[in-house]
């Protein structure tokens, strides 16, 4: 369905509603809608504008990384290194600024380091034919260690004067919306267009669907695959830098364990681990669901120890609703 639904839209032929209902994301959007309605009812604070803005900021960090991860997964890969690259980018950008490089140069260098790790992953997957799990697991370990080496366990702060505009990136607002959220939306739109409207995106789906056929159709499979690992690492780097700006401090365990949240959001959003399937709208909703859930559980005053039970149950339920939707339209 994926690619098909996105590209084809025989105009006028089908009603808008029909198309909406049949689209991949209906199930997961319904799951989100149910959660939002339920929470607004049981936790009145949930619907307050302030809380919504907080949520919007919170899901943006993971959300940005999910965009890159989704592209990797569409080609049939997986990137476990994102959490560590996030941490390394955070720490190295702060360290560069601490050395007096200034925000722009410092962040650029941090992103270049991230990209280099993505490049390494991509080369191992393509040129050395490793299963993606292996090099990304290795760089997960390596990048985290490098972050530790840079900080030697201490936090880096005071790298810029408190009134520096850099802190606006993560902490500030524009038109009343948190800046990280704006970055997330802009990147989502770019990624969405790239996946659904460009030749590049179409080729990624083809690689994930049938790599051999893609190769025999003349696609530069290796180059395309390398590109997604680089993109994934760069999105992780962006998240790390924005988080540094938000926290105004960098520590080596930033992004720790985030690879699981990121992959979970992508999978909940309908991205297949086997490749060839997934949309940006889906993973966007997936990222939002996870944060709304976390926020909702605190607002409902759930016992902290039980929260994991609810998180797990909602993940299964959300995907179950999605399956129902698919089943419904399949047996129709």
């Amino acid at each position, binding site marked *: 369905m994926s690619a098909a639904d996105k590209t084809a839209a025989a105009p006028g032929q089908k009603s808008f509603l029909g198309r909406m209902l049949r689209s991949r994301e209906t199930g997961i959007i319904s799951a989100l809608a149910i959660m939002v309605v339920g929470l607004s009812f049981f936790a009145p*604070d949930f619907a*307050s504008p*302030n*809380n919504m803005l*907080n949520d919007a900021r*919170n899901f943006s*960090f993971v959300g940005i990384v999910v965009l890159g991860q989704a592209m990797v997964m569409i080609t049939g890969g997986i990137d476990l290194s994102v959490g560590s690259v996030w941490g390394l980018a955070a720490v190295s950008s702060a360290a560069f600024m601490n050395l007096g490089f200034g925000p722009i140069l410092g962040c650029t260098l941090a992103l270049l380091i991230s990209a280099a790790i993505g490049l390494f992953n991509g080369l191992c997957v393509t040129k050395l034919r490793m299963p993606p799990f292996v090099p990304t697991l290795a760089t997960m370990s390596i990048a985290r260690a490098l972050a*530790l080496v840079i*900080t*030697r*366990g*201490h*936090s880096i*702060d005071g790298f810029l004067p408190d009134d520096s505009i850099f802190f606006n990136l993560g*902490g500030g607002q524009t038109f009343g919306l948190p800046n990280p959220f704006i970055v997330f939306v802009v990147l989502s739109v770019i990624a969405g267009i790239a996946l659904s409207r460009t030749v590049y995106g179409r080729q990624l789906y083809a690689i994930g669907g049938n790599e051999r056929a893609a190769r025999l159709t003349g696609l530069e499979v290796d180059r395309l695959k390398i590109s997604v690992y680089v993109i994934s690492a760069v999105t992780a780097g962006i998240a790390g830098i924005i*988080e540094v700006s*938000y*926290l*105004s*401090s960098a*520590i*080596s*365990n*930033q992004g*720790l*364990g985030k690879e699981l949240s990121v992959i979970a959001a992508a999978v909940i959003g309908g991205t297949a681990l086997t490749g060839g399937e997934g949309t940006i709208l889906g993973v966007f909703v997936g990222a939002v669901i996870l944060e709304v859930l*976390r*926020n909702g559980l*605190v*607002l409902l*005053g759930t016992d*902290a*120890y039980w*929260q*994991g039970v609810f998180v797990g149950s909602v993940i299964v339920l959300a995907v179950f609703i999605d399956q129902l939707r698919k089943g419904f339209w399949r047996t129709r």
Partner: protein
Amino acid sequence: SGRAHAAEKTFAMVPKALGIPFYADAETGCEAEAAKIGAKCDFTGPSQLDDAAQISIMRDLITKHVAGISVAPNNPDSIKGVIADAIKAGIPVITFDSDSPDSQRIGFIGTNNEGGGETAGKAFAAALPNGGTYAVLTGGLSAANLNDRIAGFKKQLGPNFKEVAGSPYSCNDDSNAAVQIIQDVLSKYPHLDGIYFSGGWPMFAPAAYARAVKSRKADIMDGKFVVVSFDTLLPQLKLLKEGDATVLVGQRPYAMGTGSIDMLNTLSSGGTVPKVTDTGTDVVTKDNVDSFIAKASK
């Protein structure tokens, strides 16, 4: 309305992460004290050590309008913003266990980790008057409180002490891994003079720990091999009594829990509290271990 306590206050306690026995003791204290004064203790924190997740939870608590927050910041700098926001929203905030002195938090309750480390270092140096080689075992390499304990510890050691290559060893708060590291370290340095644990992880697995140090047990008893550990949990006390450790230095998490509630209650009723409340440290040696065991087992 018939409700006498319509305004039952909810105070939130936010540890660095869930599932750490130290904070579980603080939670017990928090709940006991809250029950005593007819308030509620909302103990909630991130599932793992994560600055951003902790801040998110703080923001959620502000949204919920709790009556006060006591937090153990994962990172003293990044927490400043959300503390300021809470204060702005009229919610008193104090810190416990780890502090954020530059923030607008009203008070701090706990022990100074560096001070605790110094206590441990003093005991270590006293046990090895001639100095020697030593290793340090810690939890996560980037945990600020643990790093403070190590820094304080080292400050007390003279120039005749030498840290072995590879130290500090990190067990990531995993008891099994901690024991494995001790085994590895003792194979590599069979003549090590002392070891310092910045937290009690290996000793939380008493049987395995006892096996791991068996080859040096006689040395520990004779004072030729010195083991100084943070924390004073029951299994550790028993090990000390058996002669598997030299000195334990402990903080008082239960007191941090009760104290937090008292301070927050005072603040929310318009009172004032001191900037820093020291809950003190316990130093346990062979001489006073029995009284601690009696206290801990009751």
